[in-house]
């Protein structure tokens, strides 16, 4: 056989392109921000999220228990009343990996989320809401009697 007939090579390339094209839609979502989620400090996590500065705001509301008996399941309810909130990030400052979650909201969804999280030890939780390219924040201290991480 002649070494690599051009037609065959072309069809192989076409097939490869087709496969790549098919694989793409699966990855079209905002990929998990590995750098931010693996950050070991709240400051590093925020930096990786592109938060240079934030303003304290009463329009960001955190509902969470002051004292959590069981750190493995701590309900946290977040509402942003900042107009045009695009995303909400939740940071648990003392956790080994402080960034706990980030949600992006499109038209049709209110900037609201309730989620149960693990809180390793008593810690401030911080919420950052992004609107119009700016970040608005609120924080709340949660005291934990029994930690949520470890065995």
């Amino acid at each position, binding site marked *: 056989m002649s070494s690599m007939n051009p037609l065959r090579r072309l069809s192989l390339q076409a097939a490869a392109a087709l496969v790549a094209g098919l694989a793409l839609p699966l990855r079209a*979502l905002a990929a998990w921000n590995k750098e931010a*989620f693996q950050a070991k400090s709240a400051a590093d996590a925020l930096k990786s999220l592109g938060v240079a500065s934030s303003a304290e705001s009463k329009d960001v509301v955190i509902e969470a228990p002051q004292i959590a008996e069981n750190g493995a399941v701590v309900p946290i*309810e977040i509402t942003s009343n900042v107009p045009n909130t695009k995303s909400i990030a939740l940071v648990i400052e003392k956790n080994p990996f402080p960034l*706990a979650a980030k949600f992006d*909201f499109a038209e049709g*969804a209110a900037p609201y989320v309730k989620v149960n999280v*693990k809180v390793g030890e008593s810690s401030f939780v911080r919420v950052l809401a992004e609107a119009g390219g700016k970040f608005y924040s609120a924080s709340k201290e949660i005291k934990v009697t029994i930690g949520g*991480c470890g*065995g």
Partner: protein
Amino acid sequence: MAEPMKIRATLKGDLCDVRVLMVHPMETGLRKDTNGAVVPAHFIQEMTVKVNGRTVIEGQISQAVSRNPVFSFRLNGVKAGDKLEIAWLDNKGERSQTETAIA
């Protein structure tokens, strides 16, 4: 395929409260089993909420979310019969998708 989610979507006017329960161990990768061996991390990393095929919420989460995660969201401008799809993907590439009609 992972276990399906339980979704409850309650319509009040054109607002909809969505509650979703995902069955997942959400292992942090920091916990040790009874023999002292580290249990490898296994947790959901990405999730999406779609209404009639359009993405309205995209979430990225960490191992800090509790075992068998429960989330509540609020949707607006929806009506009975709209199709609600929720999907997740974990760090091992396992995924799950459940759809339901808003009632």
